[in-house]
């Protein structure tokens, strides 16, 4: 008997013994099963700025995990070796790490938060949900780094245990999502709006890919949507593309293009705009949107100085969007 997975908008109809598009949710004897629950292929301690997450516990380490699999198949995927892998692949192995062990690891390594990242936590939903639930009860914060391609009901359910989300808005047209990511735009926009409305700390990233989504008018359209639907205080990260997977023929994104994107966003009134995957003079710093004082100075993933006082600008006392302690 076929089963239908209603976790993500792909709504995969899965025959006996087959998996959904994500490769990790399988129909076994007419029951949907997840084969990656408790089996992350990657566990590392990263600086939280790497997610990227700039307005959430800056300067802290974050235990970061992923299993194999993804429900999208972006041709530009930066982590395709694990996101497009099958659990059975010879060259990919996994750790046995159920939620209880994950929480212990996070605690014993003095990480205040735990990130579900690298591939997409949507496809290891049950593992993410149980671990996030357990982590929260142990005083650990939960962070999702995701493409947000999930149906609303399971998304709302998961967000109850989540403290911060970095959501990758990959483009701003249905054509881009269809042609590059084998997905659709609307569910991602809905996930963004639901996340912001739920009260989690939300940051948006956008990978700027030469010739595909790097025109000032495309950037402007994306920024205007973010401003109108998520608010001008939502941190926005423009990330440089590195040629990988099926897009090795394209050049890396130049610093000039990323600075142009940042300028467009700031001219549209966005308050916190950053550039990533490149070194820049001030594209990683946080400034007060009112008095323009430097609040947090960064170099790459390193915090050089943090001048915030109780989450406020020391110059004009403006409250800065984020979770600071």
């Amino acid at each position, binding site marked *: *008997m*076929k*089963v*239908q*997975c*209603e*976790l993500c908008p792909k709504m995969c*109809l*899965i025959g006996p013994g087959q998996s959904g598009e994500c490769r990790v*949710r*399988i129909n*076994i004897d*007419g*029951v*949907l*099963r*997840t*084969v*990656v*629950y*408790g*089996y992350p292929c*990657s*566990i*590392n*301690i*990263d*600086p939280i700025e*790497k*997610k990227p997450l700039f307005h959430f516990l800056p300067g802290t380490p974050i*235990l*970061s995990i*992923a299993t*194999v699999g993804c429900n999208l198949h972006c041709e530009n995927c*930066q*982590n395709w070796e*694990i996101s497009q892998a*099958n*659990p*059975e*692949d*010879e060259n*990919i*192995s*996994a*750790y*046995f*790490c159920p939620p209880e062990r994950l929480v212990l*690891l996070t605690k014993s*390594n003095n990480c205040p938060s735990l990130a579900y*990242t*690298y591939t997409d936590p949507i496809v290891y*939903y*049950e*593992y993410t949900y149980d671990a996030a639930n357990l982590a929260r009860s142990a005083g650990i914060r939960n962070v999702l*780094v995701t493409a947000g391609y999930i*149906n609303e*009901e*399971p998304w709302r359910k998961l967000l109850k245990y989540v403290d911060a989300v*970095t959501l990758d808005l990959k483009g701003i047209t249905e054509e881009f999502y269809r042609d590059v990511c084998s997905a659709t735009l609307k569910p991602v926009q809905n996930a963004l709006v639901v996340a912001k409305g739920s009260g989690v700390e939300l940051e948006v990233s956008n990978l700027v890919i030469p010739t595909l989504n790097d025109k000032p008018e495309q950037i402007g359209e994306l920024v205007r949507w973010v401003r109108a639907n998520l608010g001008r205080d939502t941190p926005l990260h423009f990330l440089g593309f590195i040629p990988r997977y099926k897009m090795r023929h394209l050049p890396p994104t130049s610093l000039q293009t990323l600075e142009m994107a940042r300028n467009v966003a700031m001219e549209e009134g966005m308050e916190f705009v950053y550039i990533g995957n490149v070194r820049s003079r001030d594209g990683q710093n946080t400034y007060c949107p009112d008095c323009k004082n430097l609040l947090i100075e960064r170099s790459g993933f390193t915090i050089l100085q943090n001048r915030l006082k109780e989450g406020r600008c020391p110059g004009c006392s403006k409250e800065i969007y984020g979770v600071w302690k």
Partner: protein
Amino acid sequence: MTRRKFIRKLIKAGSVIAFGASWLISKASPRKFIWAVRVKKYPGHLKPLRDISKQGKWSG
């Protein structure tokens, strides 16, 4: 065959057809899931937990 017997047979045949049709429909339409059940054994290779303190090589 009396009219009463004919109606009884008609009802019986109708209910058999209705039962069969509903059984077929229930078999043909997929069972729907959001929550997946975990498997007991990982289908791939497992490795021992090593030093996790270094930064991940993956983006994100």
